């Protein structure tokens, strides 16, 4: 399976926000609730990643509950691709 770089996932995250007229801040420690990145947005990002990799990922991992910042999202997608 090919993998997506952290930057590529970050770009996708920015695209999800851009369709709602929002911008992804440069600081990865920004909290998701501060930029209005909600569960629907995370789900959309997940589908974008799956489409890009052309594979279904297991998003049911326990780490999913502790995602609070932009960095958490990027880490999580990173981990998924390693699994």
């Amino acid at each position, binding site marked *: 399976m090919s993998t997506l770089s952290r930057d590529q996932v970050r770009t996708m995250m920015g695209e999800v926000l851009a369709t709602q007229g929002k911008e992804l801040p440069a600081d990865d420690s920004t909290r998701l609730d501060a930029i209005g990145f909600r569960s*629907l947005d995370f789900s*959309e990002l997940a589908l974008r990643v799956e489409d890009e990799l052309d594979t279904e990922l297991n998003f049911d991992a326990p780490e999913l509950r502790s995602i609070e910042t932009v960095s958490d999202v990027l880490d999580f997608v990173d981990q998924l691709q390693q699994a």
Partner: protein
Amino acid sequence: MSQPAGAGNRIVTSRYDGTWAGLPGWPELPSAAAVLVADNTDAVRAVWQHVTDGDRETLIATATRVEDEQAEGFRADGLAVVRGDVVQPATAQRAADGGRVWLLTSGSTGRPKQVAHTLDSLTTVAGDQPARTWLCPYATGAYAWWQVVTLSLSLPGQDVVFVEPSQLDEWPQLALEHGVTAASGTPTFWRQALWRAGDVVAQLKLEQITLGGEPVDQAILDRLREVFPDARISWIYASSEAGAAIAVHDGRAGFPQAWLDRETAGRPRLSVADGELVIASQKAAEGMAPAIRTGDRVEIVDGRVLITGRIASDEINVGGSKASASSVRRVLLDHPDVVWAAVRGRKAPLVGNMVVADVVLRDGAEADTARLQAFCAERLPDYSVPRRMRVLPEIPIKETLKSDV
């Protein structure tokens, strides 16, 4: 047996051009037979044999719709299976149930089921009708196909031009050549025709346009009215199980709310239970409940009862919120650049499912998926906005002429 009133009507298939009465006979056809046909020529021959013999039991379906296992089931039920010159006798012997016509349902809920009709229960148009040449693009042996066939058999002046699945792309030309003045098709069929061959379609001298088989939206009715300002445009609600139950000719989507719970002699009784259309009809297939739950969801808006989609497939659970696929589709079709849309749920983390859509855009469209999402976001709750959208190069069309919506 005396010949039906429409025996002299002209029928045109890819291999035959003549009257019903002029069709070559098929005397060796077993009296109880499932005729699995390659094309409409064999199908109309089987119909004519059924009509003229009087005491036959017949099932007609396109061979490609019937798997071997199902064909074996027909044989075990006492029907010989006929494919061209090859006849497989029934494995259970019994006398033919004279006059019975078996139909396979469209199979939108799984494998096609068998329902029993007679030519009488399949004949729903009576009285004087203007002379017309009909186009019949429906899947051979389907309920809508039989509607056109029985119309032509029972009323003089109702000629039919049959379209094979392989001719679906060129039907407007075929219709022009044969002087078609009336055509019946699904909304998907009409949408595809106007999108792909609008110029040729507009040259047809259509006096009657009929839509059925799928929910009809206002946009396609308006577009047809624009192209054919003088045609009578009808929407028919019918199913193999319930028969033809609703006919609307006012060019508006849905039917008047006043028709609900009304008792009219000879007409089906329509009602709504838990958001589902329920029909009690004398034209229903044999063995149906007195009131048939159709599985179609309805919504009442401004005094009209709109059929919005199948209950089983319409609801998409997005994180506990219920998105309606048909409502999302309606919004997409309201966009001037969208000629076709299909909406479904897709498995997604955190929320269980997300709404996704496939669309076909008109030539020269300015919209892209981001603009369409924004358009939806202005009109729908956020959980209903399609988060992934594909633009397809053309409208996908199935043998049933219905789209996967």
